[in-house]
């Protein structure tokens, strides 16, 4: 987190929670960890006011506290948690809308998220007692817990991770006895290794599938209804008893921002697959990611191995109406493709019949609902380029359908059904192969042919490639296509001289120099001087250009966050410009009846203000997608 990120957080806090809270967090971000007296001194605020501000901040876990183990009665240190503030404030809107999309038949789910964004953490029983419809709330909590968007919270998590790790380390170090034969460094290394192992356990404490869930009491009616509802989400929980689980009322719940980043990443990946391969393959990919989802807990510092998904598993959950075959073109001349299809047919035909029947029974109303939603999404995203392709696809399909119906008429009914299933599996394999055989962007990695093919994702490689791609696109739009070409050349060659770049890029040296300087200015390139002699004369020096991805991405992220800050600052300013209308809108009676209480001119003004707000806030959440790619994905 840089000072620019901090500026955004402070700005958001000032607008949402008021100047007092913002000042406290600002001081903590600038000065690091502070005790209450020090905090009062640096912020020039009275202690009582700071305490008032700290209560909600701690409740929301925007500020964490730490009491040293060896001095339990000393005053605690307070530490700001910028990552959490960022996640909770910037991603609030996308979190709610994602939950709305994902659980269309659970109206209480978005409300749960909204409340948790407001309160930070809630005991399940308290929430159920306060909720208008306890049954609906319970279903929503259970569903959200099952897909890990909610997680339980323990007291320890109100302390900073670094301190907790130090405590674990100290504990482990004390366990290893001091010996004269073993050096102190070695002892510390051993303790470090032990502590890290222990830490992985601590970090993954919420990762087991039934976290925050208990077996439901089957006698009550409530749980049976929840059982029915939760059926569709059972796929996201690997446990076989998942259907019978409901929320543990004694659990303290909070939002799991790590998991939400995982889901955002999946959306980014699927969108990219749609652009680079096609919408049908992207739908298959989306399904593959969804199958992996229960085992993906966080993007950064992931302690678990990347999960493996099999072809059969994907097929089982795949939208049954998704037409796989029509999107793969037949090779122009007959080739060896028949060989591969034969082998997969053999394995699939027997296993497939049962998987298909399962998917039929498993797909309830919500499944089709979700798929419809997905379809809508894909349609809205489809580009003009696709439109061109659509024409070709439509014409080819119409030309082929006639001939194909002749072929199909000879088949009997029963055998045809089997054939459809096996060919469907075969077609799925082709889509998965498309995802695997993509050298620039390896969407999937095939591990073996067991279970209809075992697939995984090498997130580090894939996200690295996506970051590079995304960065190139930003550079291309900002500096032009030529600059992007030069950047790619430099990236692939390592360190390279201007003349050689010109030679490879097939551009005159004098033309590329301006582009290189511009790239240098924006931080994507660096220059190394290698003198030929001892005199370091410029004419006798090699100048080698090179690209450092990590620093370039960090600088780009900084620019993006600064842009978000500016957007939000403008929103605040737009409101400030209209003090009259804002104070009127804040009145209770106006809130109740905006239509009646405002004049026509005021309505016009409010409309304009809201349009500006909307545009800025939408832009912020779209910019956040870039932040996810550059900062939070790996």
């Amino acid at each position: 987190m840089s000072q620019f990120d901090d500026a955004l957080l402070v700005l958001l806090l000032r607008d949402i929670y008021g100047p007092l809270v913002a000042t406290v967090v600002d001081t903590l971000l600038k000065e690091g960890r502070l005790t209450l007296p020090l905090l009062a001194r640096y912020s020039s605020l009275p202690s009582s006011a700071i305490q008032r501000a700290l209560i909600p901040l701690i409740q929301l876990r925007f500020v964490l506290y730490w009491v040293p183990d060896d001095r339990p009665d000393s005053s605690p240190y307070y530490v700001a948690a910028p990552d959490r503030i960022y996640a909770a404030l910037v991603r609030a809107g996308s979190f709610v809308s994602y939950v709305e999309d994902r659980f269309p038949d659970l109206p209480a789910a978005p409300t749960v998220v909204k409340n948790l964004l407001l309160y930070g953490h809630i005991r399940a029983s308290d929430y159920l007692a306060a909720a208008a419809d306890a049954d609906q709330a319970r279903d929503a909590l259970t569903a959200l817990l099952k897909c890990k968007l909610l997680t339980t919270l323990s007291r320890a998590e109100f302390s900073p991770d670094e301190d907790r790790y130090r405590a674990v380390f100290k504990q482990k170090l004390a366990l290893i006895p001091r010996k004269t034969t073993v050096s102190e460094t070695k002892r510390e290394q051993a303790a470090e290794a032990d502590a890290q192992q222990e830490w992985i356990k601590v970090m993954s404490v919420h990762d087991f599938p039934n976290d925050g869930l208990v077996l439901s009491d089957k006698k009550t009616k409530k749980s049976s209804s929840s059982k029915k509802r939760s059926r569709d989400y059972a796929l996201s929980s690997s446990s076989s008893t998942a259907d019978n689980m409901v929320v543990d009322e004694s659990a303290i719940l909070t939002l799991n921002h790590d998991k939400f980043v995982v889901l955002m990443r999946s959306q980014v990946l699927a969108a990219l697959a749609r652009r680079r391969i096609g919408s049908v393959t992207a739908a298959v990919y989306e399904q593959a990611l969804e199958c992996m989802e229960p085992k993906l807990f966080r993007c950064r510092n992931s302690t678990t191995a990347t999960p493996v998904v099999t072809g059969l598993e994907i097929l089982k959950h795949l939208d049954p109406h998704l037409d796989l075959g029509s999107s793969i073109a037949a090779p122009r001349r007959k080739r060896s493709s028949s060989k591969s299809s034969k082998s997969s047919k053999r394995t699939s035909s027997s296993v497939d019949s049962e998987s298909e029947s399962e998917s039929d029974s498993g797909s309830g109303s919500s499944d089709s609902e979700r798929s419809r939603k997905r379809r809508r999404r894909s349609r809205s995203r489809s580009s003009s380029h696709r439109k061109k392709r659509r024409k070709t696809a439509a014409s080819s399909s119409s030309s082929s359908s006639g001939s194909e119906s002749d072929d199909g008429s000879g088949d009997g009914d029963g055998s045809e059904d089997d054939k459809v299933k096996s060919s469907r599996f075969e077609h799925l394999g082709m889509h998965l192969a498309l995802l695997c055989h993509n050298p620039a962007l390896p969407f999937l990695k095939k591990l073996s042919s067991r279970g209809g093919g075992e697939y995984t994702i090498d997130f580090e490689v894939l996200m690295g490639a996506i970051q590079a791609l995304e960065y190139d696109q930003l550079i291309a739009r900002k500096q032009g296509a030529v600059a992007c070409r030069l950047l790619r050349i430099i990236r692939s060659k390592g360190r390279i001289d201007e003349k050689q770049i010109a030679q490879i890029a097939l551009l005159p040296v004098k033309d590329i120099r301006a582009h290189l300087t511009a790239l240098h200015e924006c931080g994507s390139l660096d220059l190394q001087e290698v003198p030929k002699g001892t005199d370091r004369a410029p004419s006798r020096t090699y100048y080698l250009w090179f690209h450092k991805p990590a620093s370039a991405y960090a600088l780009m992220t900084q620019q993006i966050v600064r842009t978000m800050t500016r957007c939000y600052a403008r929103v605040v300013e737009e409101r400030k410009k209209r003090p009259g209308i804002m104070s009127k809108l804040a009145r209770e009676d106006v809130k109740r009846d905006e239509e009646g209480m405002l004049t026509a001119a005021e309505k016009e003004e409010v409309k304009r203000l809201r349009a500006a707000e909307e545009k800025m806030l939408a832009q912020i959440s779209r910019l956040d997608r870039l932040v996810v790619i550059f900062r939070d994905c790996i």
Partner: protein
Amino acid sequence: MQVDTNGFHCFKGLVKMLRQGDDLCYQAVKKEDAEKVQSMTKDEAMVYSYIEASGSEGIWTKTIKAKTNLHQSVVQRCLKNLEGKRYIKNIKSVKYPTRKIYMLYNLQPSIDVTGGPWFTDSELDTEFISSLLSIVFRFIASESLPSEDDKPIAPPPKHRKRKSSSKKSSSSSSSSKEKQVSYDQLSFPASYSKYPSLSDIHDFVQNSGITTVDLALSDIKALVDVLIYDGKIETIDDGMSYRVVLGATAENGADLGGDEDGSGGVAWDAYTEVPCGHCSIVDLCKTGGPVSAEECVYFDEWLIQ
């Protein structure tokens, strides 16, 4: 050849003395060439011999001066005379654009001097290159994307769907119709091996008659590499063949205009859409600074859009 006649022949300019390793050899000279040399003054002949020896590489005037030990003005005069008689010509080198380089009038400058097919009059012919790039890109695109003649391996299952959907709820049959509009994709399977290779592209460019310049395989490789660096194509099969990157357009693949990319591109373009993405004084911009988001005129324009 008799030794005693050597002097005579050398004098007449009909035989040249050469050194091959440690041995001295003699080479016959064409009569016309010999006559040419005969008509020159001594100095001119000396300058001419060095220019002749340089072959298709050409020779720099300074080098001539150093080798002949003649005065600058003498060399200049000789060169002027020789050029006037059309025995030699002045050429421009790509490597050293400022040097005056001479070579025999009837010779073609070598690739080192001219810079290969990409140079016209010792300047990089960017228009020629960019037109070739777009032609090569279109060729690869046409070869690596299914055309209208290509049929899917399975047609959109209209008749099949009706049978299976009759068992299911009525809503699904209506949604299946929707699907054929929304899911549109036609890709070659991953095992497709007819993507063009370098020699295919070479053959295409040579046979298409686009250019009279003879392009070697390495020149085509250079073109294809540029396309790869532009993000328009990618290599597959360990770099043996090439295919187009989806989402790249023929004219400006990386420079995605708003219309080119449609709605799909917008989601990827959040940063450059905001005025800050193109602002040149963005580093000065902060609240209370010389420029700030609160007073930014570009934001005003952008908000009205």
